[in-house]
């Protein structure tokens, strides 16, 4: 039956957040993924691909029904995507229990990196804390004495602050948790100004980040306070923040100008196809497709021996656009992390660029709790 | 002389600078029809609203059957036997005419925290409602949605709802307004038939009906009772004539 299966199209279900303000993240992952499939002649691992994209609406129970449809109705071979950790939380169990491969292209919750890791789950992004640890380490190395921390009041926000504090040992002058979806940061900015920190570390994804960056700039704080951030200054927000973000720092495992062959052709092809620079999320979507491609190819398109597929995936035998990429025991990547900053290209496009490498071949701290079975 | 069932003592109500009820004392004896008349805006409806509980007086007492009810909520007063009709039609427009009356009957036939038995099968409520509709002459409109009744018919329904609660004291605010001559006559007859059984406080601008029915009349002007007495005396009172009655012929 292996050969017969190999003749059928490979079914990949993409579960993404495609509505509401964060829709852009899902969209970019999808675009990155689709780009690779297209470049690969509509195939992954030698098999034709049938891609089923569904919107989780950022509602966990909707995600759950949708994923059950993917599993039971469409009988997909892979579920890929997943932008937010609460969605991952909701669908993790049904997908892995049905022994379907789950390729996380963004959300990287600590639970699934540590004690609840699962052999069917592979991440092509990062473990949440790592991105924040980059900033903590940088702030520590740079010798910032006083840092002001700010994040939205939800789990990922709290994780970010904890991640930062793991490496930063200086004084935290204040820790502020803002309402999710906060628009106006005047109050917080005034507080920051009043406590006179050396740096601000913040995690403000999406529109919140855009608002913060612009208002930070308008209030003239950029002169006195170093802006360190995670998921705040990136390819999805730069088109909106424009000049206001120039020179602001962020952390990432990837930038569009990262110097490797895979990335060069990826960025060029992406720009040609979609007319704009890819973002971090597009790169993760692209790598997710590459990962599936490599795994399926290694078993000759025959997915019936799951363990063989897992073994193949664990090899991560593809040229990641971020350069070094290998899998840790918890199926999260071991990779390099950079301090990046926003710059403007000659043609007026904004993007992030590497300032310095902060971590080399870095794995996450939860991996030690993972007992893969 | 019988004790009053309803007594107002020094009742006061103001809206800002406007004093609408100005130290009103009123005693309504059991079984009589006591009319309150007075010019528009004299404070009659406000008075009834205070007795009924829709408006809270600023000062003074309302005593019903020997109990002070001044601070009692509306529904509790109803359970002491107080029922009223409204000057500005106040019915349940989406209910059938019959159900309007039946629900009024239900309020006074045991509690309503009954969740299972279909109320439609409670024939006693239905029968009582039908009797009341008959009294006001609306039986042939029983199944019509009350909101679809004509203005005059709604006025009649008002009375039926008040009657259905089987009250001790009936407050009627312009029951004849909006009904035709014929209906006014019929209603006068009906009220006449109730005399002695209920105590009725009647506010009305139809002088034919008032003088035909009232045992006692109080005249309210600018929130004060300026005269009180037997109908003949009131009719003859020059002050009342100039403030209210005018020269209109009273049949």
């Amino acid at each position, binding site marked *: 039956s292996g050969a017969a299966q190999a003749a059928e199209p490979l079914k990949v279900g993409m579960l993404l957040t495609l509505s*509401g303000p964060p829709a*852009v993240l899902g969209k970019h992952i999808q675009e990155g993924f689709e780009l690779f499939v297209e470049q690969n002649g509509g195939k992954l691992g030698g098999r034709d691909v049938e891609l089923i994209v569904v919107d989780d609406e950022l509602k966990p129970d909707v995600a759950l029904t949708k994923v059950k449809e993917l599993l039971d109705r469409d009988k997909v071979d892979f579920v890929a995507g997943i932008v937010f950790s609460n969605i991952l939380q909701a669908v993790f169990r049904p997908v892995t229990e049905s022994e379907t491969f789950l390729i996380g292209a963004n959300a990287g919750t600590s639970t699934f990196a540590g004690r609840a890791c699962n052999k069917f789950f592979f991440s092509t992004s990062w473990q949440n804390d790592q991105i924040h640890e980059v900033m903590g380490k940088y702030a520590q190395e740079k010798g910032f004495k006083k840092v002001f921390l700010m994040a939205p009041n939800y789990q990922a926000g709290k994780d970010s602050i904890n991640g930062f504090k793991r490496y930063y040992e200086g004084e935290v002058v204040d820790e502020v948790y803002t*309402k999710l979806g906060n628009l*106006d940061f005047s109050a917080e900015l005034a507080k920051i100004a*009043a406590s006179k920190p050396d740096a601000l570390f913040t995690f403000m994804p999406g*529109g919140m980040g855009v608002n913060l960056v612009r208002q930070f700039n308008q209030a*003239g704080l950029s002169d006195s306070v170093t802006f360190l951030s995670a998921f705040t200054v990136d390819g999805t927000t730069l088109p*909106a923040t424009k000049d206001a973000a120039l020179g602001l720092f962020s952390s990432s495992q990837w930038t569009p100008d990262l110097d490797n062959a895979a990335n060069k052709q990826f960025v060029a092809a992406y720009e040609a196809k979609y007319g704009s620079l890819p973002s971090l999320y597009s790169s993760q979507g692209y790598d997710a497709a590459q990962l599936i491609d490599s795994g399926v190819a290694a078993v000759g398109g025959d997915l019936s021996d799951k363990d063989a597929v897992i073994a193949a995936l664990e090899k991560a035998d593809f040229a990641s656009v971020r350069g070094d990429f290998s899998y840790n025991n918890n199926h999260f990547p071991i990779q390099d992390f950079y301090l990046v900053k926003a710059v403007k290209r000659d043609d007026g496009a904004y993007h992030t660029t590497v300032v310095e490498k902060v971590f080399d071949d870095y794995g996450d701290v939860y991996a030690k709790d993972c007992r893969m079975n | 002389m019988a004790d009053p069932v309803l007594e107002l003592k020094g009742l006061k109500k103001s809206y800002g600078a406007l004093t609408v009820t100005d130290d009103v004392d009123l005693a309504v004896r059991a079984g009589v029809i006591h009319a309150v008349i007075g010019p528009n805006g004299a404070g009659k409806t406000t008075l009834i609203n205070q007795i009924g509980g829709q408006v809270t007086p600023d000062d003074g007492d309302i005593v019903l059957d020997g109990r002070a009810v001044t601070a009692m909520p509306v529904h509790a007063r109803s359970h002491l036997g107080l029922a009223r009709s409204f000057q500005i039609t106040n019915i349940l427009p989406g209910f059938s005419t019959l159900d309007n009356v039946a629900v009024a009957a239900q309020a006074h036939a045991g509690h309503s925290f009954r969740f299972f038995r279909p109320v439609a099968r409670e024939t006693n409520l239905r029968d009582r409602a039908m009797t009341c509709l008959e009294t006001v002459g609306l039986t042939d409109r029983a199944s019509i949605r009350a909101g679809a009744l004509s203005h005059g018919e709604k006025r009649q329904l008002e009375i039926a709802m008040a009657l259905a609660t089987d009250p001790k004291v009936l407050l009627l605010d312009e029951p004849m307004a909006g009904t035709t001559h014929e209906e006014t006559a019929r209603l006068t007859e009906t009220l006449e038939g109730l005399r002695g059984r209920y105590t009725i406080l009647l506010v009305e601008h139809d002088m034919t009906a008032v003088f035909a029915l009232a045992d006692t009349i109080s005249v309210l002007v600018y929130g004060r009772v300026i005269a009180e007495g037997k109908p003949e005396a009131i009719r003859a009172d020059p002050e009342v004539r100039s403030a209210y009655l005018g020269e209109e012929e009273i049949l």
Partner: protein
Amino acid sequence: MTGTLFAVQVLNGLQLGVLLFLVAAGLTLVFGVMDFINLAHGVQYMLGAYLAVTFYGLTGNFFATVVLALAAALVLGLVLEMLVFRHFYDRDHLDQVLATFGVILFLNEGVRIVWGAAPLSYPGPDILDGAIPIMEGFGYPIYRIALIVAGLACALGLWLVVTRTRVGMLIRAGAANPAMLSALGVDVRRLFMIVFGFGAMLAGFAGVMAGPIFSVEPGMGDGVLILAFVVIVIGGIGSIRGAFLAALLVGLVDTLGRSFMTDIFKLFLEPSAANQVGPAIASMLIYVLMAGVLFFRPTGLFPAAGRS
């Protein structure tokens, strides 16, 4: 030190309040005065901002952008009125909720198709660039002062129109009893159309003005919509003065809560516990405020006279 910060935060609160009023102004008119539950107010606000993005791209001039976006918002508002809203004036509130919810779905998605999902932006005018320093290293952006002026002007203008002009009377009358008003010779349909168009323009105006400080993205109107309703309800439906004062109150409470709630909890809780409780309470503070106000004053702070 803390004194200065407190003063600055009070100022921030008031300015957020004025901003909230600006955003709620159109809804005050359409929902508060005209009594039409327009959930689409938020997407109209969003549309204003998106139109501004486009016109800014075309003209590169902020003031031209404002004028063009307002005109476009008006036109789109009138189109919406003709296609949807006018058929629901005499329907009950819940039908209006459903229909305008349909408009939300359509426009939120439509905007995504036309402008894409990524956040967009455009700058304020150059002459309003810069900031007035009010604290060391911290300035008050001049553009925000312009916003406050715009908000105050809206408040005053709206109040004058609704309470002092014949049109205002007619709108209130039409909201209470449209049939009777038309029997007195007033073309209620046209009146409502004008009011609605004006409301759409106000919503659009708020969107245009918000663009230079907030990100322009699909769904940006949804949260704003709820805030606008909160403001109107706290103020008392139908009252412009109430809405204005409520907006200030909400702005103040929200800002002060965000600024000091956690610190207050730190006085008697472990810092980590305070960091748990403080932000949670601060997030829900305006709802606590609303519940509190409605508990003591079930029809808001300044209910419009004669309305029950």
